[in-house]
């Protein structure tokens, strides 16, 4: 009685063709993925993170004005703890500045966030950009 539970599982001697089909398709898929990753490994240049920020939307909220932005990492290296600063500028003088921290901006990917100003920029220029990051 106890021997049954102890006996090793055993695979069938004459498997259905579906098993082979699934196996071969899986093998091909894995090879494709490995090929892709391998290609990346060979061709990847070691770039330093570089960013492009864009303002998506400005909306008035209770405590001021919320400026939503999107930040894109154009390089092949991920940046962590990216500090994004937003400034309201009147000519060359900075009227107000505020910062937001983005945990990660993965390589060639986008992250988003928002900066909240207490004053309404109105017609003044709003600048948003990354001012620092750390390597993960």
């Amino acid at each position, binding site marked *: 009685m106890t021997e049954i539970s102890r*006996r090793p599982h055993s695979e069938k001697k004459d498997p259905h063709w579906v098993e082979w089909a699934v196996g071969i398709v899986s093998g091909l898929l894995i090879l494709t993925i490995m090929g892709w990753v391998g290609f990346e490994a060979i061709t990847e240049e070691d770039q330093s993170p570089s960013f492009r920020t864009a303002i998506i939307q400005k909306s008035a909220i209770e405590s001021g004005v919320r400026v939503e932005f999107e930040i894109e990492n154009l390089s092949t290296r991920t940046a962590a703890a990216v500090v994004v600063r937003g400034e309201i500028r009147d000519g060359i003088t900075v009227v107000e500045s505020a910062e937001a921290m983005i945990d990660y901006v993965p390589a060639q*990917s986008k992250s988003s966030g928002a900066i909240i100003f207490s004053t309404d920029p109105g017609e003044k220029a709003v600048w948003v950009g990354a001012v620092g990051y750390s390597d993960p």
Partner: protein
Amino acid sequence: MSKSMQRGRPKAQEPRIFLVGLGRGAAGALLFGIPMLMTMELWELGFYMERHRLFLLLLANVPLLIFLADRVGFERTTTLIQACRDANIAYGLGVLMSAGILILFGDIKIGMPFSEIVGKIAIQAVPASIGALLGRSQLGGSSDDQHGGKHDDSNDGDNAARDDNEDAVPDELSTSYAQELMLMAVGALFLNLNVAPTEEIVLISFKMTPWHALATMIISIGIMHAFVYVVAFKGTHEMPAGTPWWHAFFRFTLPGYIVSMSISFFVLWTFGRLDAVASTQALMFVIVLSFPGSIGAAAARLIL
């Protein structure tokens, strides 16, 4: 004794056996659910993850539970209706245990928004319900009410394996190919849910170069195969004599890895980790998460 439990249990014992089953389920939910119940990221996901993805995860859990209830469960089931009933109970147990523990930890309090409370419980209920169904197989009693009186039919060693495949007892080791893949999916999902919510998965893949990822893939596949066919765990699988090793490698290990990768992808997408991430980077996340996933998949084939 085991015979009498298998064939026609005495009526008076039924509620008691059922209650014991419930207890095992609750114990399983606790044992397997506790790492996730104590993970901060999973609490947070409970209130911020997109509701349609959470809903999909909760739905996807249902067939897995029915399958598990049929294969393992916390009591012996013979029909699909019974399996559905047990899956239902397990889901309920998962919800109850999650709610109880989260309240105990002060993570759910009066005055919190209703959607936050529901979200937190719902996401924890998935691993807890799987745990509830693993309760029986892992926390005992199984050989007692499983294999009773079966060995009477004269099986000699050689064709014993074939007999298994035609056996009518559902949790006897008669797994069809699809079931074997499903088992791997459950194992992968379970381990994935353990680690996917943490920030480390993302962080690790950022630290890795594509070369690391390639090595991780090869090692994951190697570990999967070794777990099941090489290392002599209890429940290890044997190939019939004269079959080359690559037969099992192609028929089980490689599809198993693809299953594990698919589950990893699904879990990462569910948790919103793949949003606005470049495809190569997303693939790296999947490869990293497939590492524990494939170990879970292989382990599921051994222990379930």
